[in-house]
């Protein structure tokens, strides 16, 4: 019987050890399990302040079986740059230097260091697990919180701002590899990380990871919520490579049907599960719909650009 | 021995580099020399100050020069513009870039020792221009050597060639040598 991705995932073993301290149903750790399977042992995770600085557990033990360097909130991509350059200087080029952080650390406060590392095309991965708010400090809005979502700093639902399209922003840096992923599609995530591993230079992967306590839904619904994000067109799965002045952009299989807006489920399907949207106004829903359209219009433009000869 | 030098130039003319070249050339002869710069909000053309402190033993002073023994002036208007005379000791020497008859200048010939060189003509002749501005700094270092009797022109040439290897260095060395030869010392 030929080996499937599932066999590969099983054979890869577990680098995330049971008995970590993430909340039950945490989307981020599901993603981390598969990311680490793809990366393997020769990996250094650089972790800024985030849920993952807590769920890795408490000194003198740690729940993750690869090397971890915990760093200050805004500094992760710069620390990773230093590590990567030092390893290269010492002749160790086949070590994965990986920033693993949340939307707060990588899309907001640490965005300058992420952008700087991208511009210098540092040989690092920046992998953002996006739970759409500052969960570690107790659910405050972030630049990645969608319109209408309630957080402790947007108690009636986020009114000001959209959701920062970080993956597109990174793509515009002209870095070798950018992808989005989603915990509901772990094999897609696994393959994207493996692909990124084969590329030298800056890699950015943006993973959608629902947070049961922060989004106020039942612990068991993480995968369902994540899948609905794709099926409603709210979260688009794609990967892109930049080579010789051209972007090669492709929609990933789970998102392909939804290029056709009529195939998408209504956004309400995604919203209704989540307490954070329980009091969402019609105006915010409209804003969300527009935002989704806008995200797809960008994707279409990149698809067209890739199709041109 | 303890000599304090002021360089009075305009932004772009290379007064700062001149003071550093001089210090470097003096060091080659076993002298201890500082080259000090006052950086403000210089723009091309605005007055610029640089200084040297020269001694035969290590200097531990770390301040600007307020009363110079020697002032190297890149053009005479700068003296009026900057209250230059107030920055001079009573028996100071002024080394000035000046074309034509020095007795027709506004310089206080009776107060100070004067050394004069037409550095602008030398560098125009050699084509030493940067961004359209004649760069007279190396010529003025040559004039300093003649007027003060130190360092030797050879040390200056060496310092110039170390700073700019190649054609640019040779042109600047030539400017320094010509200025050295053409400097006139006018007694008070």
């Amino acid at each position, binding site marked *: 019987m030929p080996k499937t991705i599932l066999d590969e995932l099983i054979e890869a073993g577990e680098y995330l050890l049971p008995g970590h301290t993430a909340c039950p149903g945490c989307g981020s750790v599901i993603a981390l399990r598969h990311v680490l399977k793809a990366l393997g*042992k*020769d*990996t*250094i995770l*650089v972790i800024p302040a985030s849920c993952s600085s*807590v769920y*890795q557990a*408490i*000194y*003198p033990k*740690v729940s*993750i*079986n*690869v*090397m*971890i*360097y*915990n*760093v*200050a909130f*805004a*500094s*992760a*991509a*710069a*620390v990773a*740059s*230093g*590590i*990567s*350059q*030092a*390893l*290269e*200087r*010492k002749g*160790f080029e086949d070590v994965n230097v990986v920033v693993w952080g949340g939307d707060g650390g990588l899309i907001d406060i640490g965005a*300058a*260091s992420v*952008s*700087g590392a991208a*511009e*210098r095309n540092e040989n690092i991965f920046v992998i953002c697990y996006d739970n759409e708010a500052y969960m570690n400090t107790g659910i405050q809005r972030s630049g990645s919180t969608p319109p209408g979502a309630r957080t402790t700093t947007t108690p009636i639902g986020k009114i000001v701002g959209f959701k920062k399209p970080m993956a597109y922003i990174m793509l515009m840096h002209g870095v070798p590899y950018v992808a989005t992923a989603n915990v509901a599609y772990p094999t897609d995530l696994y393959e994207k990380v493996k692909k990124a591993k084969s590329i030298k230079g800056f890699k950015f992967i943006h993973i959608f990871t629902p947070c049961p306590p922060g989004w106020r839904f039942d612990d068991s619904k993480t995968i369902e919520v994540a899948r609905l994000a794709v099926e409603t067109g709210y979260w688009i799965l794609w990967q892109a490579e930049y080579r010789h002045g051209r972007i090669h952009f492709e929609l990933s299989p789970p998102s392909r049907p939804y290029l056709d807006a009529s195939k998408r489920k209504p956004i309400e399907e995604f919203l209704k599960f989540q307490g954070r949207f329980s009091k969402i106004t019609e105006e915010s829903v409209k804003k969300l719909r527009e935002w989704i359209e806008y995200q797809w219009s960008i994707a279409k433009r990149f698809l067209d650009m890739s199709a041109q000869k | 021995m303890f000599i304090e030098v002021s360089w009075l130039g305009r932004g772009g003319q290379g007064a700062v580099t001149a*003071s550093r070249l001089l*210090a*470097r050339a003096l*060091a080659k002869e076993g002298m*201890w*020399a*500082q*080259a*000090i*710069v006052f*950086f403000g909000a210089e723009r091309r053309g605005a007055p610029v100050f640089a200084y040297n402190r020269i001694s035969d033993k290590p*200097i*531990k*002073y*770390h*301040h*600007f020069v307020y009363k110079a023994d020697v002032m190297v002036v890149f053009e005479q208007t700068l003296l009026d513009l900057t209250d230059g005379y107030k920055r001079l000791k009573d028996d100071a020497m002024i080394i000035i870039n000046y074309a034509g008859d020095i007795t027709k200048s506004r310089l206080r010939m009776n107060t100070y020792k004067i050394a004069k060189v037409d550095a602008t003509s030398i560098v125009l002749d050699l084509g030493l221009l940067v961004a359209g501005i004649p760069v007279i700094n190396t010529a003025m270092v040559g004039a300093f050597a003649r007027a003060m009797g130190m360092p030797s022109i050879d040390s200056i040439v060496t310092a110039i060639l170390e700073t700019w290897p190649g054609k640019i260095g040779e042109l600047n060395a030539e400017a320094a040598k010509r200025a050295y030869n053409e400097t006139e010392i006018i007694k008070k």
Partner: protein
Amino acid sequence: MAIYDVITGNDAAAWGARLSKVEVIAAYPITPQTTIVEKLAEWVEKGELNAKFIAVESEHSAMAAVIGASAAGVRAFTATSSQGLLYMIEMVSWAVGARTPVVMAIVNRALGPPWNIWSEHTDALMTRDTGWIQFWAANNQEVMDSIIQAYRVAEDKKVLLPAMVMLGGFVLSHTAMPVKIHDQNKVDQYLSPYEPPHYVLNPKISEAFAYGNILFPWDYAKVRLSIEKAMRNAVDVIKRAAKEFHEIFGIWHGDLIKEVNTDDAEIVIFALGAVAEQAEATLEVLRRNGIKVGVAKIRVFRPFPKEEIAKIADKASHVIVIDRDISFGWDGILAGEVKATLHEYKVDTPVTTKIMGIGGDDILPEHIEKAVKEVIKK
């Protein structure tokens, strides 16, 4: 053979890093530091220095990158000034807990607003409590030599803490003066290649571990206490580093302090960096006038040389502390440290404090003479 050259303090700092064979440099430009990293970038591009130069997007990232590089086992260097140092300060503090023995040159400059690019020590003194070893250089030779010594001290297995080397903005950074550029072989003899004895962030070398995950208060206190122990160990390590430097290079900048004419001095002046050397220069004039003055150049501000200061002050009948810095609502920062030290050691020599040279205001010999004469009148 050593080369004898006339170079600026910033070039001397760059030479210090070059002779120390730094392997990763990450920096962001700021006046008056910029020419240090310009020089290093030039050497790296020309291949004269086998190092990686990371042109980061901020000072915060500069310190972050050198922490990462040092953790991964290389000798790392950066430099900054003023606002840049303050922007970086989160990571400055981080480097201590990370136990990354990086060295940083700080070209001291005043803080804004209003904008001011000239010399003042307040910037570096604001990092006083971070756990960095602090060297204060009084001239360009000392700038270069202190960087080499700083690596030796920082990387010592009894220490493993970052170290900074201070030089006054413009006063040293842009002032050229004779500097003996040491022979590389001699520097290599003095400073062995960096081999981290505590941890290396490299899965090819070490088993997986996590550095710095959450730690409960009782354990945290022990970890921080170990930093204090390392800082105390640094005292002897600095003394030995200075002594061996003298043996190899024949140059003595002092160890934690350099005393000048303190033996018979009635009045002793304490100061940092080039300000201390300016006071030293003024001594000659004062002594010629029969005033017995000495200068204690505080070369290392952290660890603070309390015992030495107490001894020097005890012999004198009056102490003057000159600060080119200010702690608003208190006094000069060095003055505070000296006064507390004398109290601790029960030395009752009177202390006069003088704040001068703020924002690059020139400190002239007559200012120092005046301060001394005021004390005499008392």
